[in-house]
């Protein structure tokens, strides 16, 4: 906006601020609501005090920990997502690499299968999967909330297309220099794929941090339930204390926002690379 007349600059900034109000307003509302007494959240909702609290206190945060097992929800969420991301990176990177670089019988078939499974939305299979696992007696623990999401067609596809784009010569040089297939993958490919690992990790983490339907189906014990179920439970737990709920929300979203702000570049790269290529 260098050589624009001042009026247009003004209008442009006005537009930007309006958008900011729309997109950031609710976030600010949540933040400020979490810092004030419960009864004021709704009472002040119609005034500008909705966004800027008169006095700030952390009482709500304290009561989040007192009224519900927040630490347990958080621990469950961290365990579940740690498993999904940790195992998911490994399993999907292996498959992506085998599909992109190695020659083996059935490779094209598996590639087609991965692409086809990409289209199946989780919601379409949640019900039979629920019965399938319940029939095995496997429910109500952390693993059942994580293991089904480890192998992920989107993550495989992201790795696959990233590895395809790596210069082949690096691996060939390593093979000639005496490294085997696996050695080449670990010593040459992985160190040069930080961007892919980071963006897949972030995508997996963001997709599953807010997971609601599956834990709702699979868990009954509070001790294994993750944050999204926690907030929904909290929402229905009398007395309805809005300040507490919003404080819960802030605590729940904080890790994700931190992850996002810190790793923004990789996340955008990962998401955008799929989008721009189609």
């Amino acid at each position, binding site marked *: 906006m260098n050589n624009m007349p001042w009026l247009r600059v003004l209008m442009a900034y006005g537009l930007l601020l309006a958008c900011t109000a729309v997109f950031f307003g*609710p976030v600010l509302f949540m933040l400020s609501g979490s810092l004030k007494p419960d009864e004021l959240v709704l009472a002040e909702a119609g005034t500008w005090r909705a966004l800027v609290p008169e006095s700030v206190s952390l009482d709500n945060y304290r009561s989040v920990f007192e009224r519900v097992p927040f630490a347990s929800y958080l621990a469950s969420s961290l365990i579940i997502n740690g498993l999904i991301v940790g195992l998911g990176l490994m399993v999907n990177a292996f498959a992506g690499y085998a599909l992109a670089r*190695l020659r083996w019988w059935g490779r094209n078939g598996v590639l087609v299968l991965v692409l086809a499974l990409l289209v199946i939305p989780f919601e379409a*299979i949640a019900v039979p999967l629920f019965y399938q696992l319940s029939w095995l007696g496997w429910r109500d623990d952390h693993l059942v909330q994580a293991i089904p999401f480890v192998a992920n067609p989107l993550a495989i596809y992201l790795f696959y297309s990233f590895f395809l784009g790596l210069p082949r010569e690096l691996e060939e040089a390593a093979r000639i220099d005496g490294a085997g297939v696996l050695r080449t993958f670990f010593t040459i490919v992985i160190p040069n794929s930080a961007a892919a690992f980071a963006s897949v990790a972030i995508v997996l983490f963001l997709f599953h941090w807010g997971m609601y339907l599956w834990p709702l189906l699979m868990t009954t014990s509070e001790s294994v339930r993750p944050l999204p179920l926690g907030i929904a439970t909290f929402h229905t737990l009398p007395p309805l204390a809005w300040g507490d709920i919003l404080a819960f929300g802030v605590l729940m979203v904080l890790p994700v926002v931190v992850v996002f702000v810190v790793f923004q570049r990789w996340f955008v790269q990962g998401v955008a690379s799929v989008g721009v290529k189609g």
Partner: protein
Amino acid sequence: MTALRHSEARVGWWLTVPALAGLAAFILLPFVLAVMLSFTNLRMGSPLPVAFVGLDNYRLAFGEPAFRQGLFNNVLFALIVVPVQTALGLGLAVMLNNRFHGRWLFRTLFFMPVVFPLSLVAVVWVLIFAPGPDGVLNAVLGALTLGVWEPRDFLNDPAWALPAIMVTSIWQGAGFQMVILLAGLQAIPRQLYEAAAVDGAGALRRFLHVTLPGLRNPLIFVVIVTTILSFRVFDQVRIMTRGGPQDASTTVIHEVVRHAFDQGQVAPAAAMSVVFFLIVLAVTLALRSLMRQQGTVR
């Protein structure tokens, strides 16, 4: 095949096996199961032996007003949310494609809702849609219309429940479109704009003849993704309205879950899942083929 290739083939298989096992057990098998269940009379707690019932469940599903309403709502949802959200995302992306101070900050702010879990978004928006003149949205609309606006209970009003959920979804998703379209915009070579400007094209023409064609693939991609997500809407519905009032805001997935878990009607739920999958598949294929056809231009 030589011995050399044999070892590579072995490694390739072993690397793929864990992922393949996961995909087979947790996506492929349940999907096959869903298709099979949808042709049986399985019911939770029913003493009847499981039997093949043909298309009964599909008939039952389509005969049910709530499911039809859900289908209709999903279609309406897609028809409104996809264009609005895409246009919004495109507007934001175009705005942020200019160089100015604080661009990074604005991008972060606009994108932030995308990383919010839907359950949290739903709860926050329940507050925003709170009834009475003190509700955030009622108050804002009242102020903007100088008091003409009649406060209403959005989430309990059959006419407003679904639009309220749409607004929530658009708010949450527009940043996603923005990021992808912004990356697409930045991939358009500067020279194209310069050439168009030299040829005497104004800002509008440059947008129509350079920007939009250059964004074809990212645009089609975000349209596919948003359309599919529009059919997958569940969390917001469950938390904000439970599909009500009087099924006014129900969706296909909400009906699936309600039938399977609230009412134990597993087989009809499976039939609904299959219908849902077919819709998603058809939409994806249709949009993909569109992409392929036109993708040859560039």
